[in-house]
């Protein structure tokens, strides 16, 4: 029922945790409890590059795996490169069945939301 990669991420999730609030950190929270999944993804950015990422996810095994994979993939990428990650990349890597595609969509949304949050912090923290 589950692919080996989903099982591996579920059993040994990468980068579970949270960062302290900081202007260098972008946080994206997507999903809703009543839909059965909520993803919180955080990125730490230094000089335009994502140097670290953390996640916490409420959701099924595929949602946990999608967010774990997303944190792995964004690390070392520039903000723009991270924005290019699509849900189909994630779904393909994890061999998600059609009913679980929304988990990968959520992971893409979480990356985008975290980057948007990071960018808004940069624009508000710039000296006037």
């Amino acid at each position: 029922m589950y692919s080996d990669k989903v099982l591996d991420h579920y059993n040994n999730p990468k980068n579970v945790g949270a960062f302290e609030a900081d202007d260098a950190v972008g946080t994206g929270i997507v999903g809703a409890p009543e839909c059965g999944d909520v993803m919180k993804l955080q990125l730490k950015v230094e000089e335009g590059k994502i140097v670290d990422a953390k996640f916490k996810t409420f959701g099924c095994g595929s949602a946990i795996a999608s967010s774990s994979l997303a944190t792995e993939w964004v690390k070392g990428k520039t903000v723009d490169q991270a924005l290019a990650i699509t849900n189909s990349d994630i779904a393909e890597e994890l061999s998600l069945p059609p009913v679980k595609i929304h988990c990968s969509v959520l992971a893409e949304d979480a990356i985008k939301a975290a980057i948007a949050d990071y960018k808004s912090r940069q624009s508000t923290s710039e000296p006037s």
Partner: protein
Amino acid sequence: MKPIYLDYSATTPVDPRVLSKMLPYFTEVFGNAASKNHGFGWAAEQGVDEARAQIAALIGADAKEIVITSGATESDNLALLGVADMYKEKGNHIITCVTEHKAVLDPAHYLETQGFDVTFLPVNKEGMVDLTALEAAITDKTILISLMAANNEIGTIHPLKEIGALAKKHGVLFHTDGTQAVGKVKIDVNEMGIDLLSMSAHKMYGPKGIGALYVRRRKPRVRLSPIIHGGGHERGMRSGTLNVTGIVGFGEACRLAGLELEAEAEKLSKMRDRLHKGLEDKLDYLYLNGHPEDRLPGLLNISFAFVEGESLMMGMENIAVSSGSACTSASLEPSYVLRALGVGEDLAHCSIRFSLGRFTTDAEIDATIEKVVATVSRLREMSPLYDMAKAGIDINTIQWAGH
């Protein structure tokens, strides 16, 4: 770890005693019970007669009142469609409730397309219909009340005797889907005023593919239009060559249930409470779904807040349970039964149904507690909602972006 089966509400294994009673009927006593002119047929018929008496005895009925079917889904369909067609001159109103099994809800919806009015009564947060609302819903057009004996997801047991009395008072037939209750708790059709009762063998250690509909023969004599037409078996109510092996197995399963029901119910209640307590001792934010007392002995439905049900089941590998989580179904909608109780969708996604049975052991319960506690704890460490709860944030006050 040896797999642990805690999904007895889905189906049960055939009791070895049932199987050994069935075996000769495959190869030696293989006759057609409808063959009235030779010994092969008579022997098969004798097996059927004995089984029919055993099925009837479990529910306080007469053997002549048992119509053999392929299972509870067919029994429910026969009860609703058969009564609706037979009594359509008398009235076109049927009362049921929102937490019924689909085998009742779907025929009821079908009847709506055929000119019938169906009232789907709500239930309270423990899964009970309100008897005052039930009585108020009865009109001079009402021909049938169909309310389940025990709910398959939460185990809540309806007050059958009171419902039966109300039905009788208003001259309305009372059908109850007894799939989960028969063989688990005492059911007596006369004491409870039940006119039609659906039963299934595979929920009570009999084989799959066999069930029965009890149809009252006197006070009142209930008549049904058949939904399967053919050779006129089962007094014309259900044609088709009798599944003799299945019927014999069902009969033996009923006999054993009659003997062991009381002791088994006591044992299962204790195990269920041990499971519940073991989980509560080590985990916070647990919510019991269903009625705390009027509930099936072996059933425990709990929501583990902040942990999604499917991910929990994934972590409890080798322990077979069910979940009301949407992720276990293709529809992406969480359990309609839990929603009907007013359980929030967030908690419906977090529900697990443990159903214990005849072969469950204390050691299995202890291993389950350990595994569930470890998995829930691990997943909560990973859950952003648990963090929020610990920080004192009520997740219901957050404006979530649904998808």
